[in-house]
């Protein structure tokens, strides 16, 4: 099942600033809404999104319930060396998803 969509260039010139986009399927339940039984639906959100380039963290984001369902994040990175860009989402109820893409830097 595709849970994650990542949009990143496969190749880049050294020093080029590239855009990285990541989307993940997740309800991002706020914990403020009552369900059909009138009780509050417990909070279930992704609390943190990180991106790292060959293990070195390049972005860390703390998310709140105000982030829309299926969180989408777009940001930029300097292409330093060939390798792996890893995206990691962690959240409530032990949610952990990690996905990597390979990039060639010439």
């Amino acid at each position, binding site marked *: 099942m595709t849970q994650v969509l990542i949009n990143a260039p496969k190749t880049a010139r050294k020093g080029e*600033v590239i855009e990285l986009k990541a989307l993940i399927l997740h309800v991002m339940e706020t914990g403020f809404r009552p369900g059909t039984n009138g009780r509050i639906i417990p909070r279930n959100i992704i609390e943190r999104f990180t991106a790292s380039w060959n293990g070195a963290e390049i*972005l860390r984001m703390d998310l709140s319930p105000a982030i*829309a369902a299926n969180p*989408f994040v777009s*940001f930029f990175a*300097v292409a330093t060396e060939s390798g792996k860009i890893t995206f990691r989402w962690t959240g409530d109820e032990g949610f952990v998803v990690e996905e990597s893409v390979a990039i060639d830097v010439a």
Partner: protein
Amino acid sequence: MPGTEEGTTTRRTFIAGAALVSVLPLAPARATPEAMAAAIKEVVGDNAIREGRVTLDLPPLIENGNAVPLTVSVDSPMSEADHIKAIHVFNEKNPQPHVFDARLGPRNGKAVVATRIKLGDSQKIVAIAETSKGEFFSASADVIVTLAACLEDLT
């Protein structure tokens, strides 16, 4: 008379309880401009916040508050010596004032972060950028939301 004393206690307990119950609904069910100011203060401390350098881009009129595209861009060389360390986004009227805190660095090349957020009401959104030199810059945007997030979709 022991009975009277016991009666008084229950009445006191009842009054105390009633007072508590009547106070509880007054606790904010949503963030307020004050709550947002407090959340901002937590991040900024006593430092001055200056206008400028930050661009907060989101549609001024929103039909559906469940997914509102938001882009924060900050004018910065993003070098080792001078870069944006963090971008914080706050809201005024969602149930809580935080939207996101992003930690950036020189490896980002550009201080631009985009995402999609939920908005529970027409309100003001504030973005604050923290530079590596410890300065704070901000931008804000007023948005009108016609269909608030979290109201429907209870199927």
